[in-house]
């Protein structure tokens, strides 16, 4: 230490002490009034960066909650719409079982079918539901395009949407699909034979069959897989049909042209010929079976209702040129309705699962948000008690410095001269 001090320096040191204390007091005062422990990043650089990250997390979480609300609303709407569809289907199923009962008159059947057509329109309308924003629920990504066209009067139905499924982000690593495409739910189904079906055509053909008094009786499908040989016979409801290459048949068999050895016909042509012959016989009153043909498949329908009204025998046992399969239209239709119901229930199950996921994600997000806010508070907020006691100490120090300065000022030799 030096043992001499200039007057100037002595005063300056006193003033410096006061200035220093004032700065401290001022800083603490600002902290207290803002309630923040650091006012600028330089007070706590690491904390400042942490705060930026936390703020981003909080902002993202708020957005995820908003996305979550959107998806919940849409999924709930979808769920309740599909519930309506399910109810309609159950009703139609009841009507089907009731309507195909033999005790109904054709007029009864027509009126039952009328309700079925109404149900069809109802399901169509439900499938074309729009949400609160005017977007179609079941059109995939084509939310401004009506997904299902067709009506109970037109009978043909097309899906005009696409298979898009929109995903919304509801958590840092969690996305949720906020709907299902109409193709998923109402189209792209398969019946028990693996043929494609859609629920509207199912309903339509059911209602149409009922209204047209189609018997609930058996149908027989004959498939002409390969060209039958000359002389092969089949017996349908007591009428024998013989396939002939031009050489003539034994009466009373009915001749069905299968082409000559040099110019054989195709199975499709043979099927056509057979169909023509069957319907001729029906017209002559020799049989009570009607046939329709589709490619190489013949569908035989009995004119009378009831089981056992169709019989078929393949004259040439062991060959596979003609195969048959029987079906009962009503049961076919009921199967199709069940397939559709199953699909709709599947979709409802996934929607339910997604809603559960959303609920739990909501809780997770809220927990995380709370934890983030706590961390933010720890980093940023001032410990008021600590700050106020520091403030008091600093004020005391400032007062002391000021007092000391005044006291020393009065000590000068000049005062004593």
């Amino acid at each position, binding site marked *: 230490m030096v043992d001499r*001090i200039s007057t100037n320096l002595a005063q300056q040191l006193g003033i410096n002490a006061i200035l220093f204390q004032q700065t401290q007091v001022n800083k603490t005062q600002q902290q207290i009034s803002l309630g923040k422990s650091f006012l600028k990043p330089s007070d706590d*650089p690491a904390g400042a960066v942490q705060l930026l990250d936390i703020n981003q997390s909080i902002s993202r979480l708020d957005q995820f909650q908003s996305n979550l609300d959107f998806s919940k609303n849409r999924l709930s709407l979808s769920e309740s719409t599909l519930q309506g569809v399910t109810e309609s289907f159950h009703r139609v199923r009841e009507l089907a079982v009731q309507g195909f009962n033999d005790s109904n008159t054709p007029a009864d059947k027509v009126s039952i079918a009328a309700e079925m057509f109404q149900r069809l329109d109802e399901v169509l309308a439900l499938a074309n539901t729009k949400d609160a924003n005017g977007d179609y629920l079941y059109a995939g990504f084509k939310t401004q395009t009506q997904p299902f066209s067709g009506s109970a009067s037109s009978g043909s139905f097309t899906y005009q949407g696409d298979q898009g499924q929109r995903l919304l982000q509801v958590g840092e690593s969690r996305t949720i699909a906020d709907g299902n495409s109409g193709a998923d739910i109402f189209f792209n189904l398969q019946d028990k034979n693996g043929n494609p079906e859609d629920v509207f055509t199912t309903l339509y053909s059911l209602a149409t069959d009922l209204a047209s008094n189609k018997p609930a009786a058996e149908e027989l499908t004959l498939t002409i897989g390969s060209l039958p040989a000359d002389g092969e016979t089949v017996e349908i409801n007591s009428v024998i049909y013989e396939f002939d290459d031009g050489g003539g048949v034994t009466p009373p068999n009915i001749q069905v042209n299968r082409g000559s050895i040099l110019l054989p016909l195709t199975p499709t042509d043979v099927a056509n010929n057979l169909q023509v012959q069957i319907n001729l016989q029906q017209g002559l009153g020799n049989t009570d079976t009607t046939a329709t043909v589709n490619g190489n498949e013949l569908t035989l329908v009995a004119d009378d209702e009831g089981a056992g009204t169709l019989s078929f025998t393949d004259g040439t046992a062991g060959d596979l040129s003609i195969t048959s399969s029987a079906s009962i239209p009503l049961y076919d239709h009921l199967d199709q309705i069940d397939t559709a119901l199953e699909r709709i229930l599947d979709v409802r199950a996934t929607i339910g699962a997604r809603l559960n996921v959303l609920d739990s994600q909501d809780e997770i997000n809220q927990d995380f948000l709370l934890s983030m806010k706590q961390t933010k508070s720890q980093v940023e907020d001032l410990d008021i008690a600590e700050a106020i006691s520091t403030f008091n100490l600093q004020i005391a120090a400032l007062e002391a410095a000021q007092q000391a300065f005044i006291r020393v000022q009065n000590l000068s030799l000049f005062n004593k001269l």
Partner: protein
Amino acid sequence: MADLLLTGLSGLKAFKSVLNTTSHNIANAQTEGFSRQRVELDSLNPQLGGGGYIGSGVTTTSIDRIYDTFLSTQFRSSSSAASELDTYFNFATQVDSVLANQNVGLSASLQDFFNAVQAVADDPASLPARQVLLSEGGELENRFGTLDHLFNEITSQLNGSLKGNVSDINNLAENIASLNNKIVTAIGMGGGQQPNDMLDQRDLLIDKLSKLVNVNTSPQENGAVNVFIGNGQSLVLGTTHNTLAVQQKGFDVSAVDIVFTQGNNNTVITQFMTGGEVGGTLRFRDEVLDPSINTLGQVATSLAFAVNKQHENGIDLDGQQGQDFFNAPVITPNKLAGTGSLDVVLANTENLTTSDYSLTYDGTTYNLTRLSDNTSFSITNGNTVDGLTFDLSGVANGDSYRIRPTRTAASEFGLTLADPRDIAAALPVISEVAAGNQGTGGINSISIENLSTASLPSPPALSSVTLSYNNLTNGYDITGTGTGAGAQYLGASFVPYDSSIDNGKEYTLNIASFGDVKFTLTGQPNNADSFQLIDNIDGVGDNRNANLLSGLQTSPLLSGGKATLQESYGQIVADVGRRTQSAEANGLAQNGLLMQTIASKESISGVNLDEEAANLVRFQQAYQAASQVVLTSRTIFDTLLGAFR
């Protein structure tokens, strides 16, 4: 007798002189830079007289200032360092406060923008949601603009401060030179006596100078002091002085250099100016301001580039291909010398740095230097270095360029898209699962890259690509119609897929004249199960591109693929915060040191009023005593004269 008188008179003279000096000290007790003066008293040579050598009184040999050169040098160097840190801190703290401010800082605005993207993803067909996104884009433009404006203001402040400092330095130099002149003359006239007050004044001027910049002094034999700054440039040589000036950096109208003017020569000495306010200001510019501007620019460029790139892979509400969302980043090199031209294009953001670059061509090699670490590369036309692709076809021999990829990016950042319908939230390709599929195979997570821009404004038409599963070859056969017919996976028309190992694997199909389509395959398909990729028509509810855009918020777009936009911005905040904090701490420490040197200096040279008061008393007594001697001598003389009457 006469000796008595003379002795007495010598005492009077000497003590008067001391009293004058003491009163001078007292009067100047508060004068800045004043060193207390002391009179050196020496006894006069004795005369040989009866009985021995009789002393003949006192004389003042010199009046010295109590001054320690070593302490003075120490003080100057401490003062220079303290002032440097204080200036640095004052500037840095401004930048610090700006970045922290929630209303001005970039972070909140970035978050709002990406939240608005997600709001569009929630409801892509909603025009209000799209309009909000455009507004947020505009807000981002404002934020970048505000920050850029603030940095510009700090730059002007900085430049003004440097100009002021240089003007002060020149004034001081002039005054020191003129004082040198006066001092040399005064020493000459005084026969070697030091003109203490003028010396004090000159020292004060040099002290003030050292607050502005580091100086070295060299005292000359004739009493003048030469002052050197920077790297040995002579500011004051004897009685002449040179000046400093401020001039614009050639390629950057907003930055200034400090030049040393000697005669007709101007030498740039910016890099040698250390210490003092000038040094602190320049160091702030190099360490805090320029990197902050460049990093902000890097964030702006990367954001614009990445958003545009993703946006252009999508289609908008009218089925048109997405255009630029923000202004496409443009890099304009500054030509420093030569006749040619250089084009630089941004290739990717992952490798983009915050450094500036210089490129020279000497006829044989193109030399590219990264200025942050002075690494040099020798490049050829079309090379990509640090995310920048160089088109050297127009460069001529002798050309020299300065490339600053991120410097002006923040000010040039802007929203280009105006119509909310033009926001490309959808993707141009959608998948369709065939109705008859029996297996559980699925195709998910479709995204597009490098969508062809050949048919703008419409997107390229794909027609269709069909993937059909073949369980004999364990994979999907690729067929297609239209442009889709050109779809290839790794150059072949087959996608191998084994559900036991490839479930969830990502595949990329390259389709010439269309782009690259990425997707993942899942599940176990049955033989002949198929998917189709077709054009997305009327898919206004498609939010896939909006989701991909929102993913940019957490994508590591920067720093070699390690930092997100938010993290890079956070880097500036942390960096500036740390530097400010360290400047504050160092400044406190340095000021403490400075106080100590001042204390030491003051303890030697400072006036202590009590001491001077005591001196007044002492020498007043001595004067009284000496005048008493004169009186006595007169009395003796009178007595002698009286003896002869």
